[in-house]
């Protein structure tokens, strides 16, 4: 989680001193590129970390995935957690810029192109996290040659690919529209299609988990709408952080009223997300039967730290968003970061929670391949968290996030993403 904050923090810290004055000059002479030395350094650091991530990924593939924390009984880990998380992050940007256009209502003051660009960077990260999780990435072509169209994973690959392409088309159409080469009607049609696709992406990602009858934690019809609401929370929060930081860096001018509007929206999304969580917990707990295991695990069991950080973080963020005197730029950025952290905790609960509860509570032979904490026996392995990532997973994860940061920063520097009025 802190990696993401660092990534955004880079924008904030490095831009202010060096970049801001340069940007103001550049704005005057209509320069194509933006940003000073700070941005250059940030791009360089991101690129270096991304390359390091690729090196670690090659090490993971050649030395074997035994170097990760994943094992047979907890066969997904940090990568798939991040996949869910980044699919969610990608939501906000596209939805925030396409909803006003699709419904013909007032937008958020020219931030739509930057917002879509954050979506594109997050989508690339999400796809990359699936790829680094694969045991046989050289066989990726089989997805297209032998597609099993009944598999939710296949649906996700199709929808995620479409989503990435559509986001790029949407950005391009917005730019062309500003130059008068694409009609407003065409742009509106594209924004409606993009919006539908965005909702689908989150639903399909939820179905990878929610359609599995064998995992108590995942098997709920609520999961798809809940994924959409969680995505709206962290996506809106990401856009809020990025635009406030960019305003401070002098990249764009943005009326505080628009930031307030974003904050209110974020608050509303958080309420919906918490409401869904409440509904799910009540449904699990009320019969005091099998579902009770899920509630116990979250509220007071091994996943309690993640549960309480999510709940308290969300509530705190909502308080900031709904209290006029607290809606100061610094606090909004802090609250947004808290909301993003909260949704990451939600993803951890979902992923590990799926493996933490076993269907066959009988002891069998335990080998180093059985479960992460195999040394302490099968009962010992489930005492705490059943899975915890290893250093190589953290490293590859950092690399993928750096790739996203690289795309985001390079876009700010080289693409005409600033509001039109500049």
């Amino acid at each position, binding site marked *: 989680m802190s990696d993401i904050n660092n990534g955004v923090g880079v924008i904030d810290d490095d831009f202010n001193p060096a970049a801001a004055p340069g940007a103001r000059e550049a704005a005057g002479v209509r320069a194509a590129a933006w940003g000073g030395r700070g941005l250059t350094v940030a791009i360089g650091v991101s690129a270096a970390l991304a390359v390091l991530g690729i090196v670690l990924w090659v090490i993971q*593939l050649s*030395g*074997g*995935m*035994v170097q*990760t924390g*994943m*094992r*047979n*009984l907890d*066969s*997904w880990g940090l990568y798939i957690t991040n996949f869910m998380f980044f699919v969610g992050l990608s939501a906000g940007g596209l939805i925030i810029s396409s909803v006003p256009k699709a419904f013909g209502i007032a937008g958020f003051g020219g931030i739509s192109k930057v917002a879509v660009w954050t979506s594109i960077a997050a989508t690339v990260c999400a796809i990359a996290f*699936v790829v680094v*999780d*694969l*045991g*046989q*990435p050289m*066989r*990726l072509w*089989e*997805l297209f040659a*032998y*597609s*099993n169209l*009944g*598999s*939710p*994973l*296949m649906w996700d*690959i199709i929808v995620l690919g479409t989503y990435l392409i559509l986001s790029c088309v949407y950005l391009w159409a917005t730019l062309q529209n500003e130059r008068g080469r694409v009609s407003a009607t065409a742009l509106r049609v594209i924004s409606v299609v993009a919006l539908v696709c965005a909702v689908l992406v989150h639903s399909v990602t939820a179905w*990878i*988990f929610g*359609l*599995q*009858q*064998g*995992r108590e934690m995942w098997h709920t019809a609520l999961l798809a709408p809940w994924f959409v609401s969680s995505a709206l929370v962290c996506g809106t929060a990401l856009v809020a952080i990025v635009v406030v930081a960019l305003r401070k860096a002098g990249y764009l001018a943005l009326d505080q009223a628009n930031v307030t509007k974003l904050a209110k929206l974020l608050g509303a999304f958080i309420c919906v997300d918490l409401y869904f969580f409440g509904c799910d917990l009540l449904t699990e707990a009320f019969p005091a039967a099998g579902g009770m295991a899920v509630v116990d695990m979250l509220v007071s069991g091994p996943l309690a730290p993640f549960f309480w950080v999510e709940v308290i973080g969300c509530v705190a963020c909502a308080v900031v968003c709904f209290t006029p005197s607290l809606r100061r730029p610094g606090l909004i950025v802090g609250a947004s970061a808290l909301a993003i952290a909260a949704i990451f905790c939600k993803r951890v609960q979902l992923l590990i929670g*799926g493996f933490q509860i*076993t*269907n*066959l509570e*009988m*002891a*069998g*032979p*335990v*080998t*180093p*391949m*059985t479960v992460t904490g195999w040394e302490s*026996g*099968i*009962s010992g392995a489930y005492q705490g968290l059943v899975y915890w990532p290893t250093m190589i997973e953290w490293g590859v994860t950092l690399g993928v996030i750096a790739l996203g940061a690289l795309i985001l920063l390079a876009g700010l520097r080289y693409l005409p993403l600033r509001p039109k009025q500049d």
Partner: protein
Amino acid sequence: MRYGFAIDTKRCIGCHTCSTACRIENNLPAGMWWNRALTEGGAEMDTPAGEFPDATMSYLTVACQHCENPACVKVCPVGATYKDPETGVVRQDYDKCIGCRMCMSACPYNGVRSFNWEEPSYVVDFAMGDADVPPHQKHVVEKCTMCWHRLAKGEEPMCVKTCLARARFWGDLDDPESEVAKLVRERSSKQLLADEGTKPSVYYLV
């Protein structure tokens, strides 16, 4: 035709011979078990539940259930795991598997599917078991094949052949004259996690 097993839990003595014979016959890599004798008892394998004189211990041998409605087959994005239409055996194509481990998440019978987390290594430095067993591959998912290579020769799975207590039976569940069909018909039996709706082809006689 639907090949399946009937396992007599009253005869099973928990000797782990079926599991070990499976490991040898299929030349399984170190650390992998396709078939496991799970202890219905204490917290660790081969330990009883309860205190003397009220201690109990019994076994359930669990491998791939070769479900009629397999959760794994539905979710595999490339069709690397599939149900053989003729025999009902759930099969796994090592050459096709992309290592996404979606099937491992989908299967309710936790632990019957194994992933080769590293280049397969072996306990002894020569290959064991049947020469027709396909070679194991790094970073792919595998599981019980119902000894497909033996079925092809008209032989029964190795776990059935080697069971000391004669607790394991194998045959065509769709053929009313087969031994397994008769046992399932005449004895009371249970299927593992029947509520999941996967319709397993393994019946535990109780």
